[in-house]
């Protein structure tokens, strides 16, 4: 299955079943301005609203592999469940539940993007930048920088600062802003 169809299919399921979700990670970075590769679609869902049996049947009918056991185990362990396609695609979906108030906030502040007549919810750019600063790998910091530049005028700076304080990355945010503003760095 094409990765595009994978994303459209699974988010459509969440929409028609009124399961709050947000696409986060690499695809969120792409949507907000970072041109980069990724092989997984990371999604946070309100797992308590998921009808496991129905979801698994839907996935299987559409050529995707998952099981009730794997999903329940992942959510219980506050981990992620991987959904693979039965064809040979290298792409996959990683589903994560709401495990913290920040996960809930990610879903509640998600932004809708219209793609191929379907509205897909992505974690906000503020959320992406703050979390990328929190994770802190070289790639994460590059993602945060590019998205900050690309979204500079559209960002809710008050919210970004608030979120950065919650994640205790306020110093990193200050540094990132300094880098963006000072072209001589």
């Amino acid at each position, binding site marked *: 299955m094409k990765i595009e169809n994978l994303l459209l299919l699974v988010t459509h399921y969440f929409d028609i079943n009124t399961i709050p979700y947000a696409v986060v990670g690499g695809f969120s970075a792409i949507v907000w*301005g970072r041109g980069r590769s990724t092989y997984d679609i990371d999604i946070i869902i309100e797992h308590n609203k998921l009808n496991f049996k129905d979801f698994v049947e839907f996935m299987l009918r559409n050529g995707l592999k998952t099981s009730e056991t794997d999903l329940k185990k992942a959510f219980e362990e506050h981990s992620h469940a991987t959904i693979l396609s039965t064809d040979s695609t290298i792409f996959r979906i990683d589903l994560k539940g709401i495990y913290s108030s920040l996960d809930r906030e990610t879903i509640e502040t998600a932004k809708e993007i*219209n*793609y191929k007549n379907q509205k897909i919810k*992505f974690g906000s750019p503020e959320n992406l930048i703050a979390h990328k600063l929190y994770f802190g790998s070289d790639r994460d910091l590059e993602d945060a*920088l*590019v998205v900050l530049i690309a979204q500079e005028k559209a960002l809710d700076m008050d919210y970004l600062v608030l979120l950065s304080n919650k994640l205790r990355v306020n110093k990193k945010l200050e540094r990132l802003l300094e880098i963006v503003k000072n072209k001589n760095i």
Partner: protein
Amino acid sequence: MVSIIFSFRKDRLKDLRQEGEITKGVPPDQRLRIAFEFLEFSESLYKAGNKNKGEVFDED
């Protein structure tokens, strides 16, 4: 707690700034479409590479 302050290599920073400026004018749906095209292409290269090595792609 002391936060770790980071930096970027100068040439890398130049590229990243440029990327951010270029992508400013591109709507999110277009960014997604471009990404999908690139990812499909990279998958086809990956599969072709595996075939050429005589390896069997994991279909499980």
